[in-house]
């Protein structure tokens, strides 16, 4: 028995070593850097500075931290809501077999395979206020008289980047939920029909409760990913205009790549990790309570 145990431990060792090398050590190191004055500009001046990086970020007079937090929350939850709802609808539509379903699903899932940065560049052109497709269509349809500055007007910029993100994330939910839907036993629907349940009742009483574990895990995963996904914003607006689309992840990139300030960049990373951990714990608690009540 003991030998067996040792064998299993040895077998997971390579993965554990890789994770340690590429995940745990960098995370621990960046937590350390978060408490240091650490700028690439002059590495001879690296020194511990306590919580200074955090206070500089939170009380930054130039980049309002609370606006960035609000932007982050809107970016995550609005994107997530529409990605999930539309992805779920798509999964329901794709559940029933029809001619050409394979090709159709292939095309639909294509977006998920693209790089976030490339998607950002494409959508940046679509939303271009001068030459963009969105404006062209709206102008031709007579809905607007003058082009809208989708990415240059703070009232539209966040909505525009969220639309691009929704488009990108729908296939993920569609793939995952479709797999879950296909595993719902048909007997349950038959039994529900005998009990007189209509399509809506079946959806809310049978389908959703059965696939609840998938819904919980996918929405949680997506939340983490969206929060850590600055690619689209970076390519479309780089946080502008005037900070209106800046989220924690883009600000972190700007601190590191533009300001060479690894200390403040790491501090932002630590804030992101902390917020995500708190969110995950609360979310899983609520979800498990719901599941037991179902």
């Amino acid at each position, binding site marked *: 028995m003991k030998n067996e145990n040792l064998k299993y431990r040895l077998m997971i060792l390579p993965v554990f070593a890789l994770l340690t090398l590429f995940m745990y050590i960098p995370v621990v190191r960046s937590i350390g850097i978060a408490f240091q004055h650490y700028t690439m500009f002059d590495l001879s001046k690296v020194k511990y500075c306590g919580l200074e990086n955090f206070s500089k970020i939170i009380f930054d007079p130039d980049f309002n931290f609370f606006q960035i937090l609000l932007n982050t929350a809107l970016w995550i939850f609005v994107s997530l809501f529409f990605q999930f709802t539309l992805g779920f609808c798509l999964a329901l539509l794709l559940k029933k077999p029809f001619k050409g379903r394979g090709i159709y699903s292939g095309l639909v899932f294509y977006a998920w395979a693209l790089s976030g940065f490339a998607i950002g560049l494409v959508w940046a052109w679509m939303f271009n*206020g*001068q*030459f963009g497709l969105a404006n062209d269509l709206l102008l031709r349809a007579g809905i607007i008289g003058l082009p809208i500055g989708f990415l240059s007007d703070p009232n539209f910029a966040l909505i525009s980047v969220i639309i691009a993100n929704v488009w990108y994330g729908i296939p993920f939910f569609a793939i995952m939920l479709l797999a879950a839907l296909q595993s719902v036993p048909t007997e349950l629907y038959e039994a529900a029909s005998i009990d007189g349940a209509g399509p809506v009742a079946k959806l809310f009483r049978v389908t959703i409760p059965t696939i609840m574990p998938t819904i919980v895990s996918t929405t949680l995963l997506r939340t983490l990913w969206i929060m850590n996904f600055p690619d689209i914003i970076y390519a479309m607006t780089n946080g502008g205009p005037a900070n209106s689309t800046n989220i924690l992840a883009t600000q972190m990139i700007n601190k590191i790549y533009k300001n060479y300030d690894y200390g403040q960049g790491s501090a932002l990373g630590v804030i992101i990790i902390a917020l995500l951990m708190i969110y995950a714990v609360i979310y899983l608690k609520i979800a498990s309570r719901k599941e037991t009540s179902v």
Partner: protein
Amino acid sequence: MKKALIVLLACVTLGFAVSCKGSGKVELTFMETMTSPERTAVFKEMIAGYEKENPNVTINLISPPYDQAENKETMMLNNKQTLDVIEVRDYSVKQFVNNKNLENLEKRLASWEDGKDLLPITLASARTVDNTAYIIPEFFYIKALFVRTDILAKHGIKTYPATMDELIADCIKITNKKAGQYGFSFRGKSNEFKISDLLLLSDVPNIDPENVYKTTDGKFSLAEPAAMAAFTQYVKLFKESVPADGINWGFNEQVNAFVSGTCPFLVQDPDTVALVDQQLGRDKYTVVPLPVGKSGKAYLDYGFASLAIPSYSKNKDAAWKFITYMNSPKENSFLCQKYGPLPVHASTFKDDTFFSTGVYQAWSTEMSKTDSYVFVKYPLASDKWPGWAQLHEQYMQSVLLGKMTPEAATAKYADYWK
């Protein structure tokens, strides 16, 4: 048997060692940072020429994607990874010198024959940090005004603006928003200060050439009354002759607006020439010197990239020889013709018709009329410098959106540089 095997092994090892030493092969690792597929191809051609001339040298070119190149270079230098020749951008020199990553090239520069032909601006740039030549510039970017001759002719404009006031007036005059005709090809993001500040400061007569954000009497230049008045004019230029979307325009959108004819005035660097040539052709545009401000001057910053040797390289002599080849007047002119920016030798501007005629005359004028065109430096050595672009952009955008007054933004800028 065992003995025989040992002898054989020893012979092979010895033979290998001798052959390695005897061949005198040198492998130089060369990293570029301003990567583009077109330019990498030009570099490869130049390298092939060098390898042909020097059969004992192999150049191993590393070409990381443009966006990650500088970071990769920084990492490699700080970890002392194998590098013999590196391309260093102007903004990074101070950082690399601070971290003791660059070799002092003064002695080598003094004994280099072609070094005597370098332009004064090349030598000044080589000594950007600590007045010591840690780098040898490869080429320059200097702003000039690109003009769509065909579009302006339609609006009856045949003489091109020589002053900022004329430029603003022309831009506003031809703008007809309903017809989709605007004037100025605006830069709203991604280092927008490199254009906006040039325009804001051209009315100030006494800018310190060593630090564009200071006047010669030590005041913050952007807060000078003349600069504040120019700021208001700049906002007017934006409101009355630029599509609202211009706030979000980077390089690509700027060039696109120029090529499409939406905005027939564009302030850009010489590497835009190749791009516009390709998409438009020289019969539809020309380049003129940047208009001067009320001070009678235009302040031009000069961006550049350079070649340098990491302080820990094991092949410094071979690396220097390669740098002198890449930066010889012949090869340098070849690179600049293919790639677009301005060469570093005085003789190239005199002898090479490519640079002494046509659109490049605009830059030739800017470099020779020293009373009107003053070359200025950004405070690259300040530890506040890396954060400046993002801060500047955020407040400039706030002003253009009408969320902030020019005065309030200038106060923020002054605060930052305090």
